[in-house]
């Protein structure tokens, strides 16, 4: 008997979080992410976890950071307007190195925009929304099952690197319903909370980096009496007004991610082996782009697709290699032109990069991408 269940993307996100060990969720209602919170409210108490609906988006972000510091794997979910409000505390999590996952189910912006309509307009806000220099990890799923898997991956990455991780969904995937078969819990790899390797007597300092440059910060209530602050701090966790410590801290925050980039950054290739042209896409748009590529192939166009599973850090190497292989790249995304800037930068002039954007509150039709593929290939679609 099949174990397949009809499930929505937002529900799969919540189920993935539970499977990943998330036991605390704080949220605030916002379309089109609300089902994540609703599902967490239903599932968390069943596993002894806790859900709290906070008074606003800022408070829910603060609550998950507090809970994470107290040892609970923690998550929050929102959409564009709420994501804007959380930016200050995303920066706090980056600097104070607090593991947490924030889900952003994108909708049309700016401002209240189009609340229930699909968009991929938060790509750059994810990267640069909070002030100051900081690294960022963001993943973007294209199916319900992948939403489940990527939520687990997001939790694991946040724990491993002690950094906020953004699950960048869009309304298409968030509200999509598909039959999915979930993995057996025994197949799921969980990255456990990092623990101190020394006692205070042995010279433990909470923010002293381990070999992978990530500190083993003790959870509250373990007797280490640590201090956590959003001020720039040294290994002890206490603020210092030193230019050297400031530079070293900012550099280490970036380096701990940069040096593991090859492990973090994931892409998927379709029909690229013999391709002369390529589409680059991510999230819900990649589903449509895939259909467009299939149609173009039927018409004899040698086109393939590179799907970005990791949005940040950007897949520089994969895109640079692709640009050297093909004669042209088409970037399809539901916005006025965001990830295309990164693709253009990474392609570094090795081939032309064209943009296929849409920002009218409707998802792409395969035809719209296919006609631009044809134009890129220099052939009219017959």
């Amino acid at each position, binding site marked *: 008997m099949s174990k397949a269940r009809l499930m929505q993307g937002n529900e799969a996100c919540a189920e993935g979080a539970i499977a990943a060990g998330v*036991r*605390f969720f*704080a949220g605030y209602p916002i379309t089109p992410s609300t089902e994540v919170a609703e599902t967490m409210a*239903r599932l*968390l*108490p*069943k*596993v*002894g*976890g*806790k859900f*709290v609906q*906070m*008074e*606003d988006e*800022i*408070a*829910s*972000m*603060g*609550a*998950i*950071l*507090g*809970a*994470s*510091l*107290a*040892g*609970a794997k*923690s998550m929050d979910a929102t959409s564009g307007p709420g994501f804007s409000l959380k930016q*200050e*505390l995303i920066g*706090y999590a980056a600097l104070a190195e607090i593991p947490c996952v924030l889900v952003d189910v994108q909708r049309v912006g700016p401002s209240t925009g189009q609340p229930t309509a699909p968009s991929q307009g938060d790509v750059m806000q994810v990267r640069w929304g909070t002030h100051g220099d900081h690294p960022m990890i963001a993943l973007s799923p294209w199916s319900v099952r992948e939403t489940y898997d990527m939520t687990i991956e997001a939790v694991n990455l946040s724990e491993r690197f002690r950094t906020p991780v953004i699950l960048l969904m869009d309304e298409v995937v968030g509200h999509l319903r598909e039959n999915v078969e979930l993995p057996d819990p025994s197949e799921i790899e969980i990255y456990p909370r990092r623990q101190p390797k020394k006692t205070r007597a042995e010279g433990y300092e909470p923010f002293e980096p381990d070999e992978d440059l990530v500190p083993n910060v003790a959870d*509250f*209530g373990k*007797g*280490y*009496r*640590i*201090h*956590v*602050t*959003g*001020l720039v701090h040294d290994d002890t966790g*206490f*603020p210092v007004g030193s230019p050297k410590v400031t530079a070293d801290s900012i550099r280490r925050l970036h380096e701990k991610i940069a040096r593991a980039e090859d492990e973090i950054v994931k892409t998927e290739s379709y029909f690229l082996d013999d391709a002369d042209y390529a589409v680059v896409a991510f999230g819900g748009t990649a589903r449509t782009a895939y259909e467009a590529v299939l149609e173009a192939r039927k018409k004899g166009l040698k086109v393939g697709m590179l799907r970005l599973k990791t949005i940040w850090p950007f897949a520089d190497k994969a895109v640079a290699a692709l640009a050297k292989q093909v004669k042209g790249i088409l970037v399809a995304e539901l916005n006025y032109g965001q990830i295309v800037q990164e693709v253009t930068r990474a392609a570094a002039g090795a081939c032309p990069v064209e943009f296929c954007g849409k920002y009218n509150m409707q998802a792409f039709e395969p035809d719209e991408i296919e006609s631009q593929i044809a134009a890129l290939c220099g052939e009219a679609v017959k």
Partner: protein
Amino acid sequence: MIERSYEKYFRQNHLPHLWCPGCGNGIAMKAIVQAIEKKPGFTQDNTVIVSGIGCSSRASGYMNFDTLHTAHGRAIPFATGIKLARPDLNVIVITGDGDCTAIGGNHFIHGCRRNVDLTVVLFNNNIYGMTGGQASPTTPVGKKATTAPYGSVDRTFDACKLAQAAGATYVARSTAYHVPHLVNMIAGGLDNKGFSFIEALVQCPTAYGRKNRMGSPANMMMWMRDNAVMKAAWDKLPDEKKTGEKFPIGLFYSQSDIDYDTAYDEVIERAGGAKK
């Protein structure tokens, strides 16, 4: 030689503190550990101190516990997360008048409403001290600040009335002059299983006192002595005598009610979940 008491509660290597000479924050900070000292259930390893941003909120760095110096106004949400994730920990919030009643105002009232088991101590110096003396929601009307050079026209919050109206289950006020009383007010808050709010009026001689010609720190404390009226006496005062700068101190409200975490345990039970 005089024995220095309560030394263990402070991180000696991070003292002296950065507060100005004559500031009342140190008195309020010590009152918190004096209250903790009275409570056998509170140890340095099962108590977390959470603060926001501002002069008051630098206290967390000096206190020898697990401590968290959060973002401006956000101490109560962080503390809420800590308490719900680890109900066995005692969580104390240190905040200031700007931090708690301005930028953190929404979190403050909803913390009261939610009745999470937190003890919130507001160091009220009537001014934004860290940024150099701007008017706060507790700067009295007519008093001067760098952003109110002709006297403040903003009406003030009474943080205790606000807390009580919003649902806090323990509400009290004291001052940096009335130290044993302040300690008792805080200790009562630690006993309450629910959201406890204690306003500690503290003197800021550098910004507030200087702008408003209140004299030396000692003079500012004598002002507290002369104007604070114990609640029992205040309640008997006819309205026409509740004038000038007089204000009540004491325990204003105490009503035990189910705290959020205990209520949520029932949710876990109804959902059929095992307590972790």
